[in-house]
């Protein structure tokens, strides 16, 4: 145990923390992932992945925060505090967290309506997400967007139209290439949207112009209530880009996703054009809050996944078995995440809604007309800029 004297010294001088005695932790560990499936690729990502202790703890914390935040959102919905749409990410955390771990700050993301976790990872605080869900002023879109419309720097949002974010993502990829900012774009869609025609148009242009885009199909097995097998003639979504190289990755393994993204990102950055990623994952809740989620699959199926493939539990086991962290440390993270989210829920609930004076606020970043048309062309509303403008450059 640490002596009180050491504590006092460190308390005064933070710079000495590096010489802290490190008990018996491993500083890093190597794991074997499930084999990747490849399409149009000679060589794939390495199945042997190494992670440092600090990063592992960070990924664990991020996944736990998303899970806890979604649980809070689900409860708030059942209290009727959140109204309208609400799609939860529970079960799919490893996809977003793994991808984020391989991104650089110039990279951008665009996703569909299952957007809460990504919004948090891209830099919005849990209060910013939960307050947005509750329609409060402190939300990242001042409560005007709700569940499907959250934005922040380099995050082009939740999008409400199934599949429509993918052509937009190709456009953002084009912007990265045009400006030469070194970034790439990640566009996410589900196995349901994978059968949309506009995706194939986006693939075509992305490949034609060699845009730095990673198209990610988050295959959670069900497009709303229809299983992938009943909806797709070819359920190998990583092959669906035809002329675009594809990688299948176990989306319940955060390290595998991180490695696959790193590999795909490097290809894009080298100017080799788009890459298609399929993350095989699972969603615990129904498609949205109005779907109990048990009429097209059994409760046993869900519990089976929760017990044997849960992204958080399985990563926790890996960390414990390789001595990357102790059970107490992880427990402490759980507790602090829980406290953070509980606080965020309280803060969001006590926040106020915006007033009617913001009816026509922030429609344009730069409004060229003096007024905004009202219900008829005779009554007009004044345009104001209040919220922070993002992605305007």
């Amino acid at each position, binding site marked *: 145990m*640490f002596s009180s004297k050491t504590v006092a010294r460190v308390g005064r001088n933070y710079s000495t923390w590096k010489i802290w005695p490190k008990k018996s932790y491993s500083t890093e560990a190597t794991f074997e992932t499930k084999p990747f499936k490849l399409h149009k690729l000679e060589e794939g990502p390495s199945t042997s992945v190494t992670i440092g202790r600090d990063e592992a703890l*960070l990924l664990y914390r991020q996944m736990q925060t998303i899970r806890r935040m979604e649980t809070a959102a689900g409860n708030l919905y059942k*209290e*009727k505090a959140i109204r309208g749409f609400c799609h939860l990410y529970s079960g799919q955390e490893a996809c977003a967290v793994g991808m984020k771990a391989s991104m650089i700050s110039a990279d951008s993301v665009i996703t569909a309506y299952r957007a809460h976790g990504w919004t948090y990872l891209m830099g919005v605080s849990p209060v910013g997400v939960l307050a947005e869900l509750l329609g409060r002023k402190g939300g990242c879109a001042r409560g005007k967007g709700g569940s499907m419309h959250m934005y922040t720097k380099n995050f082009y949002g939740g999008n409400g139209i199934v599949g429509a974010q993918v052509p937009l993502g190709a456009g953002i990829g084009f912007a990265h290439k045009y400006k030469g900012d070194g970034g790439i774009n990640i566009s996410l869609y589900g196995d349901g949207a994978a059968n949309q025609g506009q995706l194939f148009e986006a693939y075509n242009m992305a490949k034609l112009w060699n845009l730095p885009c990673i198209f990610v199909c988050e295959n959670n097995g069900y497009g709303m209530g229809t299983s992938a097998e009943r909806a797709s003639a070819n359920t190998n979504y990583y092959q669906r880009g035809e002329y675009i190289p594809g990688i299948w990755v176990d989306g319940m393994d955060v390290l595998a996703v991180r490695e696959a993204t790193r590999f795909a990102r490097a290809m894009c950055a080298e100017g080799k054009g788009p890459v298609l990623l399929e993350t095989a994952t699972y969603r615990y809740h129904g498609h949205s809050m109005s779907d109990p989620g048990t009429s097209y699959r059994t409760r046993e199926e869900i519990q089976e996944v929760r017990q044997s493939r849960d992204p958080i539990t399985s990563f926790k086991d890996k960390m414990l078995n390789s001595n990357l962290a102790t059970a107490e440390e992880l427990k402490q993270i759980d507790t602090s995440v829980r406290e953070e989210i*509980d606080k965020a829920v309280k803060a969001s609930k006590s926040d106020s809604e915006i007033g009617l004076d913001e009816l026509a606020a922030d429609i344009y970043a730069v409004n060229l007309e003096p007024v905004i048309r009202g219900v008829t062309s005779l009554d007009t509303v004044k345009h104001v800029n209040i919220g922070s403008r993002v992605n305007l450059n």
Partner: protein
Amino acid sequence: MATRIYRTLSKSLWKFSFYNHSQLLMPVQITQRLSSQLNKNFHTSRCLEDVQEVKMPSLSPTMTEGTIVKWMKKEGEAVAAGDVLCEIQTDKAVVSLEFDDEGILAKILMPENSSDVKVGTLIALMVGEGEDWKNVEVPKGAQQPEKSAEKQGSDQPRASKPSVSSGGSHGSSPGLIGPAVKSLLTHYGLKPSEIQASGPKGVILKGDVLRLVSDRKLQPLKHDVSPPKSEAPSGKTGSRPVKKIPASTPTDIEVTSMRRTIAKRLLQSKSTIPHAYSVANCSIDRIMKLRKELQSIGVKVSVNDFIIKVVGNALSKSPAINVAWEASTVVQKGSVDISVAVATDNGLITPIVTNVAERDVIQISEQVKLLAEKARSGKLQPHEFMGGSFSISNLGMFGIHHFSAIINPPQCAILAVGGGHTALGKDGKPITTVGFTLSYDGSAITEEAAAKFLANLKHEVENASEISLGIFNLQSRLEMLEMAAPN
């Protein structure tokens, strides 16, 4: 104790050191967490934050209250994420409530069959794994329906506050107490001796009480409306015999949420839809004959199933009846989906037999059996009883001639089926007739269309055939099936 605090301190600082660059934890949060950690080590009592409250959820968009049908977990039982805690009857169906976290079900505050629990009411408490679930503290304001008055008395969490006593007799009363002061004292459960009097001759003023109330931040006591049973020490009330309610007095029937929904919808229907009625008597001899024939080859189909089928046929000939209101337009439905009234203990519910025109009478019979079974056990899914393009209500089994039914909106017509009665046929021989009463929405369906439909129905009933019922050549088909089956 000291080393434990230091350890917590050191751990937290250590954490800060590698999280500060990831910007996940700001220094402010660190201090807050630190203090909460210290608190946890100082106090032996459990922190309230560890207890998770489970509230009655809103499980359908229109649900305002629900009934707890069954608890799937017991107090003290471990719950894994995704497990079903309990089954709740909403205004539409019985839905399972899943729990998204893991922990132990510490206390059930609403027992099974607690009906009409408002959304948001506390129904249970959960604690974390490995924690002491037996001594969980029930938050103030939580309803405990079944606990007796004496239990509430001993469980009072506000131990520091004086117990209820309506002033006067207790302690030395200092002089005169005015009615306003007396009322305040009773209101806040205070004794006159606790108040520092500032009036002349030690008289307590209203201001003195109010000052004490605001100083101590007291809340007014909640008074039980029910008469006190256990605490009454006087013999008068205790010796009074309990009156038995004679059988002739009226009893209150509890109105279930389902009954309330039915009442609301019926009232809305009958008061906003201009109901019009047409009646036809049809001979069902053909149907009875076909039914007997089916019985002779071992296929049991009820008269009601035949009626569903022939009504389906008549509806496909009269699409003007197979309509429903959608907003302000009348929409002609593409398929014939008939809602069939099924009586359950809670009231009438109308599961839907879909695509009646395309199914044969045997398939219809099977579907009706399945739906009725589901309806009785409350397991109908919303899509199985919402929608539908026409309704049938059959009370024939009770022997009545005719009756008229109330339209089930947004549908525009319902057919009420009476019982069979013997009448004289055209050739002077006895026939069995059944009375069909069509209630239809006069604003959506014309009298002429209704009359034509009944004419079509009469024709379908009286000329029912193997072809029209979809059971043509049934016997040989059955034989072929038997031959194809192994053994």
